[in-house]
């Protein structure tokens, strides 16, 4: 049989546009292509069904969309060009579990099962893809993230930043005719050391700095009504927003300037000072934590809070994983909160209260956009009136909440804060409240449980929190009805897989074509982990930790647990990356992404992650649904 090289080459070329074929050796791809057949499936036709017995064929979609669905499950999966199925069935030499149907006219490359197994032996990347799948795709995505940001050390990384992203405030300017006196007044009012002289169209003409005062004003005895253009340094140095921080540093070093203008076209958009550049290099975990520990006033903590966020962005850019990053952010934020409390309570007694973190902070899963969720447990001693103690705690709490707000942790819109009398309770009161939620199981109680049951002690009398946790575990485990209700509630939030093309996205409105990664992506895992933890009496609050601990007790396969955790952290990573990008372009941070804008690899991983979310929900339904 003659083998025409051209068609094989064209097929190799087509395949190598998709994972895992893009990493396979050319010879192995040619080996594969020579064994492929092309089959056609008309719209609606079954490609593969469980009742066909052990899978005989490995399918790679050449063009069109195949839909896979499992019997009795509402959700389904869409497979597109370059995707393969049924890998699991072929590996374990069993029948496919899903029904695969042509959603459009479909052409598939088809490989006999025996050749599939030979290829597994032949090609390590193919083997890795088929056996590891999610883990393999994740590793690939991680490499891509790292490649996107060239980085060697933190210092280099920070000097790789774009100037546009370093601008901290809108530039302060004045017109060329402004008298010296008015100019100096503006500088004093704004607390700035330099001012840019601009034309009406924001084109910069010159710069005047405090250093110019001695040589140009005081010694020559210049009158205060002199127009500033006579005193400014003309033709200031400007760089575009796309220039790197190191270019600004070089320019400053070369010309002895302390400021560089950031100019977009002819328009001034910001000023970068020497200080801005040096502050980039100050940011490291150890520097930040020691700065927090030695801080004596709020201003230093505000700076530290800003540094924490900057560090988060830098580390993300270096490809640090979501698990480490969220843990690190939460740890530093914990440290900061602790120091805020110490400073605010320097004169108050802390021997009777415990500061609690709820929600994502309680789970040690904070992202770059986070508000306050906190509360207090206080101890009431014999003969004391709880209301008196509460009043004391509340005034303290208000100062702490406001200080945290000043550090960039906005006050909670839902009022879940220690300064709210509802969440500043004695141990006995917390127990009564939690017991009421558990016994009631109404929607509001379930919503509250999902926030408050992730509490974690942050400061003060941690034994109070430990007692509450112990009591809660016992109470929840002893109330199966409540677990069923939590599960039913959690299952209402389905992963957005299927329906229109790949993902269910919002249609219309402000959020057209986007999906909420927090609500639809991370929540299914977080909710499931909470139920597992409550059911098994685990005291852990972190999602990954909860899953690992509960997995042991429930005898769940380790690989399954790790796949859930990997999927959860991939979604967290996408959230962080999204927030990072929004931060770079000066947008408000949110959790919404447009799946069409993801690259093909990330889109496939996200799909796989949503499949894992479906699996964890299925497990939840199986174990705890009434």
């Amino acid at each position, binding site marked *: 049989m*003659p*083998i*025409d090289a051209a*068609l094989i080459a064209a097929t190799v070329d087509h395949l190598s546009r998709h994972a895992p074929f893009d990493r396979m050796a050319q010879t192995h791809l040619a080996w594969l292509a020579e*064994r492929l057949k092309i089959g056609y499936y*008309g719209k609606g036709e079954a490609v593969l069904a469980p009742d066909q017995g052990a899978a005989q064929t490995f399918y790679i979609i050449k063009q069109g969309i195949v839909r896979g669905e499992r019997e009795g499950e509402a959700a389904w999966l869409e497979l597109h060009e370059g995707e393969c199925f049924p890998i699991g069935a072929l590996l374990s030499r069993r029948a496919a579990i899903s029904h695969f149907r042509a959603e459009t006219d479909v052409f598939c490359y088809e490989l006999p099962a025996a050749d599939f197994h030979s290829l597994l032996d032949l090609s390590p990347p193919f083997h890795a893809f088929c056996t590891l799948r999610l883990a393999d795709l994740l590793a690939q995505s991680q490499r891509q993230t790292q490649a996107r940001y060239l980085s060697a050390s933190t210092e280099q990384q920070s000097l790789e930043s774009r100037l546009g992203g370093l601008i901290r405030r809108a530039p302060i300017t004045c017109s060329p005719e402004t008298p010296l006196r008015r100019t100096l007044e503006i500088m004093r009012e704004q607390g700035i050391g330099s001012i840019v002289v601009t034309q009406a169209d924001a084109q910069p003409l010159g710069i005047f700095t405090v250093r110019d005062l001695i040589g140009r004003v005081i010694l020559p005895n210049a009158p205060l009504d002199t127009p500033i253009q006579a005193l400014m340094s003309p033709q200031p140095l400007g760089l575009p927003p796309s220039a790197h921080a190191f270019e600004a540093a070089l320019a400053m070093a070369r010309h002895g300037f302390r400021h560089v203008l950031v100019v977009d076209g002819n328009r001034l958009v910001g000023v970068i000072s020497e200080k801005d550049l040096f502050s980039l290099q100050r940011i490291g975990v150890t520097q930040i934590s020691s700065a927090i520990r030695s801080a004596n006033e709020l201003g230093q903590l505000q700076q530290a809070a800003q540094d924490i966020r900057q560090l988060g962005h830098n580390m993300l850019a270096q490809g640090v994983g979501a698990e480490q990053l969220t843990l690190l952010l939460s740890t530093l934020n914990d440290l900061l909160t602790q120091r805020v409390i110490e400073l605010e309570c320097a004169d108050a007694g802390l021997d009777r209260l415990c500061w609690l973190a709820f929600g994502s902070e309680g789970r040690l899963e904070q992202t770059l956009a986070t508000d306050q969720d906190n509360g207090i447990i206080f101890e009431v001693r014999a003969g004391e009136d709880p209301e008196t103690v509460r009043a004391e705690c509340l005034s303290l709490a208000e100062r702490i909440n406001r200080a945290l707000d000043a550090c960039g942790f906005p006050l909670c819109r839902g009022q879940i804060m220690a300064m709210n009398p509802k969440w500043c309770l004695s141990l006995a009161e917390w127990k009564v409240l939690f017991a009421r939620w558990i016994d009631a199981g109404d929607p509001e109680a379930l919503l509250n449980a999902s926030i408050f049951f992730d509490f974690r002690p942050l400061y003060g009398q941690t034994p109070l929190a430990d007692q509450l946790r112990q009591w809660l575990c016992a109470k929840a485990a002893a109330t199966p009805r409540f677990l069923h209700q939590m599960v039913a509630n959690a299952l209402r939030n389905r992963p957005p897989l299927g329906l229109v093309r790949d993902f269910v996205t919002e249609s219309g409105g402000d959020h057209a074509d986007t999906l909420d990664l927090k609500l639809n992506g991370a929540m299914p895992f977080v909710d499931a982990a909470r139920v597992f933890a409550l059911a098994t009496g685990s005291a852990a609050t972190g999602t990954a930790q909860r899953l690992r601990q509960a997995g042991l007790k429930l005898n769940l396969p380790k690989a399954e647990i790790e796949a859930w955790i990997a999927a959860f952290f991939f979604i967290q990573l996408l959230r962080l990356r999204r927030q990072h990008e929004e931060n770079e372009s000066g947008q408000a941070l949110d959790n919404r992404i447009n799946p069409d804008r993801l690259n093909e690899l990330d889109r496939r991983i996200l799909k796989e992650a949503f499949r894992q979310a479906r699996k964890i929900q299925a497990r939840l339904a199986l174990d705890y649904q009434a």
Partner: protein
Amino acid sequence: MSLPLRHWLARRLDRVALPPELAERLAAWRALPAADLALPFEQERYVVIDVESTGLDMRRDRLIAIGAVAVHHGRIHLADSFEIVLRQSEVSGKDNILVHGIGGERQREGFEPGEALLRFLGYLGSSPLVAFHVAFDATMIRRACKTFLGFDFHPPWLDLAYVMPSLLPELARSHRALDHWTRHFGIGNYARHNALADALATAQLFLTALPLAQAHGLQCYRDLLGQEKAQRWLGASI
């Protein structure tokens, strides 16, 4: 040189000059038993082809390349494909080269036409042929066989340009060219106007025709030929 004269010369040359080795291979091919056109689709091997030529004039233009893809048991077998370039005594014009992308060098380095055609016949065996707009491909190959091998090439041909509209009459008016049909089925083409790529696209179109034909109660190549004939009558009456 006038066309009849060239043909006459070619025939003379053939009688005298077809080397014994080629003559032997030709005789062996001609001795193959004819295909059974009544075999069900699932049992037969079909060869889907597309040709490239120096132009669109069926009387004057010459055959440059043949691309072919085999369909067995309702599946395209990528390994069972074929492409060959015929050596040209004079390279086709620049405009023409831009259409099929076979440059002057490749045209000059192609196979000796007689050898090329015999290789094609060897690949084809006795499989029935399928193409889109058969008249052109068939004429080009037949004339080349006449000129270089000195025999009349008259295999069974099926024309998808008639079969497709007969199976999907509601699309007949709006779908005339190969591109219309491939677009309808979402069939990609990795290199349009490359004989092999076009043959692959045509073969994919043929795959879509098979289940449609079965839905019309047609079981074999001969049934499809009947369908094609009816459509030609219908087309002529429109």
